[in-house]
């Protein structure tokens, strides 16, 4: 269920786009209306979601400390894993976001007879990193469809990505990496029994969808080629708010575009929001200076306590019997 439904949903989405263009000729709908709508949902949804998190305060300063605290001057403190300054937090967050520091710690724990054994488990980290970085580079590469005068940096990224110089148009390494990484991330979900047990449709759907996007892109670039200049006149038209549907752009482009639109619209309502969320994680983005600087809880309220007076009232005789000082004789 959790696998079949999202799988066929993605297939169905492809068919919708295919039929919409080939049979119904709804170029304006698929080339202009849906992308605009999806983009709006994405941007507004993203902002509202982050705002929603921001409306809940962080009542306590709860960093997960992963190294030595700053205490006595002669004990070497771990300035990044247990940051005691803003700079430390920035480095910690940068390592987390750019290089998945915590995932890099991953271990495989197994029982061998009656022994608990810890093995290295870097594949998830590697595949995760490969997936996210290729995704980012691919997004950056697509900026050539949105910029009139293409900056040198972008050409450099493209050049590096195509450094193998295979085929024409040149093969991008990120295209291969992303397909491989997504496949790995899917296979581990079905192959590891525990992981399969916890995986939901919401875990498979983005994998299938992103695989579909990458695959349709690859097919378009290398196999069913389309009129790229036409595509760019459309994408540039979106930006100037006067889009015109170009002639003779193949259906594969509309499939690619529709799947991206679905991803954008789905994004703010899904676990994909971890992109924004990771920045807000209170166990990572706070300074461990708890005993140095007071953290204020905005919704703090007075509570019922058992005062010393009440305590002494109850135990005064017993206290006096053993010579403990009391406030009232």
């Amino acid at each position, binding site marked *: 269920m959790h696998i079949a439904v999202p799988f066929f949903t993605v297939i169905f989405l492809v068919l919708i786009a295919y039929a919409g263009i080939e049979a119904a000729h709804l170029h304006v709908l698929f080339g202009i209306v849906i992308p605009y709508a999806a983009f709006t949902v994405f941007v507004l949804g993203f902002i509202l979601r982050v705002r929603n998190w921001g409306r809940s305060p962080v009542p306590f300063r709860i960093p997960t400390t992963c190294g030595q605290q700053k205490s006595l001057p002669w004990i070497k403190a771990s300035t990044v894993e247990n940051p005691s300054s803003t700079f430390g937090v920035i480095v910690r967050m940068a390592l987390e976001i750019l290089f998945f520091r915590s995932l890099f710690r991953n271990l495989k724990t197994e029982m061998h007879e009656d022994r608990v054994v810890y093995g290295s488990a870097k594949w998830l980290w590697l595949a995760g990193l490969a997936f996210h970085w290729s995704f980012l580079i691919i997004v950056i590469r697509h*900026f050539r469809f949105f910029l009139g*005068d293409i900056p040198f940096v972008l050409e450099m990224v493209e050049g590096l990505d195509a450094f193998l*110089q295979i*085929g*024409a*148009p040149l093969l991008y390494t990120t295209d291969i990496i992303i397909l491989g990484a997504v496949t790995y991330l899917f296979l581990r979900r079905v192959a590891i029994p525990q992981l399969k047990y916890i995986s939901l449709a919401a875990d498979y759907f983005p994998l299938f969808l992103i695989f579909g996007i990458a695959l349709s892109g690859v097919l378009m670039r290398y196999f069913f080629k389309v009129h790229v200049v036409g595509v760019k006149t459309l994408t540039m038209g979106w930006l100037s708010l006067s889009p015109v549907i170009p002639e003779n752009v193949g259906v594969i482009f509309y499939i690619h575009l529709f799947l991206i639109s679905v991803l954008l619209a789905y994004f703010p309502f899904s676990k994909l929001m971890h992109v924004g969320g990771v920045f807000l994680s209170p166990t990572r983005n706070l300074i461990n200076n708890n005993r140095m600087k007071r*953290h204020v809880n905005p919704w703090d309220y007075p509570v019922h306590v058992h005062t010393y007076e009440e305590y002494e009232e109850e135990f005064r005789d017993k206290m006096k019997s053993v010579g403990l000082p009391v406030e009232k004789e």
Partner: protein
Amino acid sequence: MYDGNKIIIGLVVFGLLIISPILYNTLGKASVPPEPDINTPEINKMVEKKCVEPKSFMRANHMQILNDWRDEVVRVGKTRTYVNGEGKEFNMSLQNTCMKCHSNKKNFCDKCHTYMAVKPYCWDCHIAPKEKTT
């Protein structure tokens, strides 16, 4: 503690990234969709202005054909003759076939390639022809 300012700064950065192409484009020069020029002496001589394959096919697949020709001539070396859809024969040569008609690299090839930021490596080996336009 809300850290509202930091969140707002983060969202502003997000917003700027999103609209960065628009900002960039307004700063730069306006982009006009390219129209490759076929006004060359050789093409003007032709009665029926026809490329190796139909125009729409060439537009999307020319790089594929060039790549195949290169492999055929340089690496396989069996034949130098290309037979098109209509059965017409061509010499597989960038300089002697393609560039013979399209002798205006700047106004033909480069126009779209610059627009799309494509950098074909044809000219790593071949010498670009002298520009001929009428």
